[in-house]
């Protein structure tokens, strides 16, 4: 169960090999975390994440290969996760892929695939878990969105557009679930130095994964519904949203 300070005991992760989800789980392990199911595409990365959590005295850590783009599998997976874990206090949706926005590299298949990885799959997974959490009468879905979706820019517009969709879906789902005991938390990090962004030039106000984790855990405790990392981005993007498009399109990559 989530305690009154917002700390979960049982967590299911989609995208469990990612740097961000690993950092978040490390922090939760120091609080109340006792049971985790890590899922993702690369079993090697999942195992490494699982070993780390076992080392942090998390009593029960399981892994399962799951590709969030295999939509048909998601409903069954949510049911089986509930059977295996009992109460699911938190579902962390951290699956995603930056991909490309170079016009020379883009084709219909690439765009569809990125949209599935970043929007369709995660949204479908949230839906499947929302059903399970509603039946148990409590629980929280934490979804990693991005400032890239708050105002989409040319440098990463495919990823950004998919995140914009995911962000809107998560906010809407959260509102639709009001009164059910289930809540949705949207996390909007700026540039995070992780494997996913390796080789790219960090944007101003770039952060590392532990800072995102710290902000997420603080947000769980204070009951935040939208978490910006760093928090100043909330105000910065409030302004950037109003920048005229003629200037916005010239924003550097």
């Amino acid at each position, binding site marked *: 169960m989530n305690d009154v*300070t917002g700390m979960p005991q049982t967590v299911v992760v989609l995208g469990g090999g990612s740097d961000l989800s690993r950092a978040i789980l490390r922090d939760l392990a120091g609080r109340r975390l006792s049971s985790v199911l890590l899922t993702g595409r690369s079993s090697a990365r999942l195992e490494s994440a699982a070993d780390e959590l076992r080392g942090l005295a998390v009593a029960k850590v399981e892994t399962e290969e799951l590709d969030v783009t295999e939509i048909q599998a998601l409903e069954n997976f949510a049911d089986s996760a509930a059977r295996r874990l009992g109460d699911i206090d938190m579902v962390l949706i951290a699956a995603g892929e930056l991909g490309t926005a170079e016009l020379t590299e883009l084709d219909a298949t690439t765009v569809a695939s990125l949209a599935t990885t970043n929007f369709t799959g995660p949204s479908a997974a949230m839906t499947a878990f929302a059903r399970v959490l509603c039946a148990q009468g409590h629980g929280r879905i934490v979804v990693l969105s991005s400032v890239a979706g708050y105002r989409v820019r040319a440098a990463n517009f495919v990823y950004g557009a998919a995140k914009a969709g995911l962000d809107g879906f998560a906010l809407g789902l959260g509102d639709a679930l009001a009164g059910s005991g289930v809540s949705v938390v949207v996390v909007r990090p700026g540039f995070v130095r992780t494997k996913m962004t390796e080789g790219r030039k960090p944007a101003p106000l770039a952060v590392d994964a532990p800072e995102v984790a710290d902000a997420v855990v603080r947000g769980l405790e204070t009951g935040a519904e939208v978490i910006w990392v760093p928090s100043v981005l909330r105000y910065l993007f409030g302004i950037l949203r109003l920048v005229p498009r003629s200037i916005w399109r010239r924003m550097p990559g």
Partner: protein
Amino acid sequence: MTAIGSGELLTGWGRACPSAAWVVRPESAQDLEAFLREPGPHLPRGLGRSYGDAAQCAGGTVIDCTALDRVGELDRSGRIHVEAGCSLDALMRAIVPRGFFVPVTPGTRYVTMGGAIASDVHGKNHHRDGTISARVERLSLVTPTAQHECGPDREAELFWATAGGMGLTGVITDATLRLVPIETSRMLVDTERTEDLDTCMARMTEIDAEHRYSVAWVDSLASGRRLGRSVITVGDHAKISDLPDKMRDDPLGFNPRQLANVPFTPPVSLLNPLTVAAFNEAWYRRAPRRRTGELQAISTFFHPLDGVGSWNLLYGPRGFTQYQFVVPFGAEEVVRRVLERLSSARIASFLAVLKRFGEAGNGHLSFPTVGWTLALDLPLGEAGLGRILDELDELVAEAGGRVYLSKDGRVKPEILRSMYPRMDEWNGVRLAVDPRGVLVSDLSRRLGFAGPRCPRMARAVGGIHK
């Protein structure tokens, strides 16, 4: 019986972690037995005044007991039979005019008899009279497997597992209580102000034994030299001879009223360090250095917060928790360190209450043990409180103390086990009457009483059903 809706969001008094359950409201013990025969999880609930998650059962059925509220005959010796859903408010309205008082009352009248026993509540007279279970002669308990009549002299194991058992051993349907005779509905109260914690504790130790009721309000934000500055109040039931002539016409009048009501939840907590510091300063200054023999109404002395309806909304949407612990005499340092830690973190407790407990009762999970107890209401909106309370738990557990389950919403399961050494014994009694684990609360799930998995009703089939 009436089924209310099909899934309702329930919280404790602290409003911090809501969960949805199906609520049923049986109107007879027979209805209730029928419910308990169905597969769980189930949980009885009274007026929802436990602070954390003790009266919630996410995804299960919560049995609202408040329709079982009859007050039975009062015999001449002061013995009364009441149904479990009867509130102490209703009970007092029935008995005070007839010259009796409840043997123990917590800080609010809005708890049910069943809830009071399941929490084994204490009051300002614990140092003298113990908890409520010490005055319960008999109770009827419906378990998932049978019906029991138990008391300290009959099925005593089950009785003591139920007193303080958080509703997890069965549903209490009625109880026989030994009341206290009173001559008037007034309290004779002495008040004194103390400048720091040491003085407060020393004075309480001196004067406790002379009075039936005693408690200290502590300024949780005072620090340094003034850490723990307090207002001590002690009291006894006034005799007719204590009343001025004009009150003697109706010495047992009792009709407490609500003075105000909080109409909605403000967007942020109104009880922040600034407002609480201002209130505390005023409250401390307002109190006389020493005043004796003041006459107060029962509600003023015991239940001042009942005068403001829904005061828990003042903490805003994130809600609050109460941290209440007890440490043995000799561990006064722990009380000091808790106050220091919160004061230095500028975590303002609007309500901080210090009291000396007497001897422990027999309930396996009953909270009070001999020593100092401190209760602090704490807002949940700021990050960092969780870790601080974890630190405080360590201090309390090391000193041989414990936290109160009816207030808790966050203690670590393994720490709790070290605080309650009779936990396994209690669990044995519980499993004997509920072998399939039908009775489950969010609290019992969080603390692992129910095992890693809990039974769940499969209600949602396709689509999202709220």
